[in-house]
């Protein structure tokens, strides 16, 4: 292979990408006219590109769009469920009531300020819409907070569930059970409620 190859091949590729300024173009042209090796290389590149471009344009198989639409997640159902819940807030409240009751801590669920609700425990503090388990305090049992937040600085010996809110865990905070945040996913919550109920009645 001639020693000219490397630099000239670079020029060829830059030419093919439309990047040569006129001086470089002249240089490439002059070289190709005088060097058979490079000329051959250049022609092969051009032929290769023509081949690849000739690859026939394909069409998606029949029924493609229908299949995609059939495979889409059934968003419509979820929206329907949310709308239905909005229209029947009492039913949702009753469901929550049922979970709490079947969970065995019905009597603790007493405090309610409009939509902000939480499981009452002796050691809890409340600041606006945030329930606080103060540092050094220990809460025995599960805590459910609805439409509010929870800040855990002490210890919870049980599960923590936050519905439409957030949980903040201080570095010294500790929860022995599960922590769950449920947001907007009412469809999912209803599933959960049914499961809980089923588990209790089995």
């Amino acid at each position, binding site marked *: 292979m001639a020693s000219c190859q490397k630099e000239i091949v670079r020029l060829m590729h830059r030419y093919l990408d439309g990047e040569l300024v006129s001086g470089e173009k002249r240089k490439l042209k002059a070289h190709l006219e005088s060097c058979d090796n490079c000329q051959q290389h250049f022609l092969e590149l051009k032929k290769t590109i023509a081949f690849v471009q000739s*690859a026939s344009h394909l069409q998606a198989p029949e029924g493609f769009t229908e299949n995609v639409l059939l495979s889409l997640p059934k968003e419509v159902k979820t929206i329907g469920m949310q709308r239905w819940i909005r229209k029947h807030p009492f039913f949702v409240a009753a469901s929550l009531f049922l979970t709490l009751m079947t969970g065995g801590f019905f009597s603790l669920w007493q405090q309610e300020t409009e939509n902000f609700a939480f499981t009452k425990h002796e050691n809890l503090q409340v600041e606006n819409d945030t329930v606080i388990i103060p540092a050094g305090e220990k809460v025995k049992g599960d805590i459910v907070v609805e439409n509010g937040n929870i800040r855990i600085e002490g210890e919870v010996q049980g599960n923590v569930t936050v519905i439409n809110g957030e949980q903040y865990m201080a570095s010294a905070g500790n929860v022995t059970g599960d922590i769950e945040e449920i947001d907007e996913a009412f469809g999912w919550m209803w599933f959960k409620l049914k499961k809980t109920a089923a588990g209790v009645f089995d």
Partner: protein
Amino acid sequence: MELIVQRRIKQVLKGDQNAFGEIVELYKDKVYQICYRMLWDRYEAEDAAQETFIKAFINIHTYDPGKKFATWLYRIATNLCIDRIRKKKPDYHLDAEVAGTEGLNMYSQVASAEKLPEEAVENLELKETIQAAIFKLPEKYRSVIVLKYIEELQLQEIAEILELPLGTVKTRVHRGREALRKYLRNV
């Protein structure tokens, strides 16, 4: 086309699945083509193209309307194909199916081609040779070559689709062309 697409996307965001059907119609051939050239298997390509649109639908809220929709969509498609290629066994292409045939691979295709008129055979063989050469490219060169020469996209757009610096795309196009030249020079 972009204007129609933007309007349809707004409808999709409001929960209108039929509007998404129109987007699929507009881009299905391009997306299928990318997948086929990358994977060289009709069923695999159809599956990957379907998955591309389903992913696009699920993640439509992450699409930035200030950018070209096609770029975003092709990125999903190429990423999916590259993932699939990486999960594949290296000898996979030996049994790859030939376009327009039912259940035939390269070997059975050669046998059945005898019944076709000579010119058609030559044409078919050339197409297969070209597709085989594209398929022989390492996946990082294959993606840029497919986007540049089959989808006919600008280097800048390819860089955006693949989320690579423009310089890297240029280098890959050069190397991809050189590799293809070696495979096809004697055809």
